[in-house]
């Protein structure tokens, strides 16, 4: 074959490839995107009744959507892994966004938002327990799942629970205090999980 022939053939091949490649790449990328399992990594740092919801709601729902989910519980978030979560509390103190409504009585009464100054909420003994009881009743009235139930549903759906071993020791907890199925790890184990995750959330 002469040099001219080769040049012509090369030119034809190049042209044809230019036509075909973008489509092939596009098709391959679409296929990969469709077959890929999305993933979610959550860091749960809070140990109150109100903050117990976001990690378990998002975790269980993502699992229902077919995602890979890992939740890393650290500091006060470890409370959410305790065997008994019925004593989780919610505090109105320093929480001005929290509505103060009664979960019983006629509708007009339930509709009132009791605007109680924070300083009074802080000073009255037992106010936190009262607020927690009201919140628990509101949750029940509205058909919202309990924390223990959501946590169980998360585990059933293969949501991975990771607990910060450093905090366990720092707070003097024992592995016996927590539900089973928890992996005790450190930041170095969680970060690579978060690195690969499509969605990472700090709560």
């Amino acid at each position: 074959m002469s040099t001219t022939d080769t040049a012509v053939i090369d030119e034809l091949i190049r042209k044809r490839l230019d036509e075909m490649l973008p489509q092939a790449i596009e098709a391959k990328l679409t296929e990969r995107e469709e077959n890929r399992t999305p993933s979610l990594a959550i860091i749960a740092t809070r140990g109150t009744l109100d903050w117990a919801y976001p990690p378990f709601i998002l975790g269980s729902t993502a699992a229902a959507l077919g995602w890979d989910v890992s939740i890393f519980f650290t500091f006060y978030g470890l409370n959410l892994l305790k065997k008994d979560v019925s004593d989780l509390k919610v505090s109105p103190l320093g929480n001005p966004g929290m509505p103060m409504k009664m979960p019983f009585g006629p509708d007009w009464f339930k509709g009132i938002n009791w605007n109680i100054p924070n300083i009074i909420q802080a000073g009255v003994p037992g106010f936190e327990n009262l607020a927690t009881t009201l919140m628990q009743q509101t949750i029940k009235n509205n058909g919202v799942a309990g924390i223990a139930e959501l946590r169980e549903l998360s585990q059933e759906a293969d949501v991975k629970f990771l607990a910060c071993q450093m905090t366990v020791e720092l707070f003097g907890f024992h592995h016996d205090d927590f539900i089973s199925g928890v992996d005790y790890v450190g930041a170095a184990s969680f970060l690579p999980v978060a690195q690969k995750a499509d969605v990472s959330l700090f709560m």
Partner: protein
Amino acid sequence: MNFDKELDAKGLNCPLPILRTKKSLTDMTSGQILKILSTDPGSVKDMAAFCKQTGNELVTQTEAGGEYQFYVKRK
């Protein structure tokens, strides 16, 4: 419309209707229809999003007097 299984999620709130739907579908075979009853207004958008993401088919949905009915065909 015919269905193979019924899920009563009335009175339940987000995300329970979706979680129960997912659980019910797991026990079913491909092509079977699950009927879901719900009173959660949020479940209308959520059920559509769930089906779109999981590849199950939302065949039809209706609403009457604050009660929602969904028919989902398992993938």
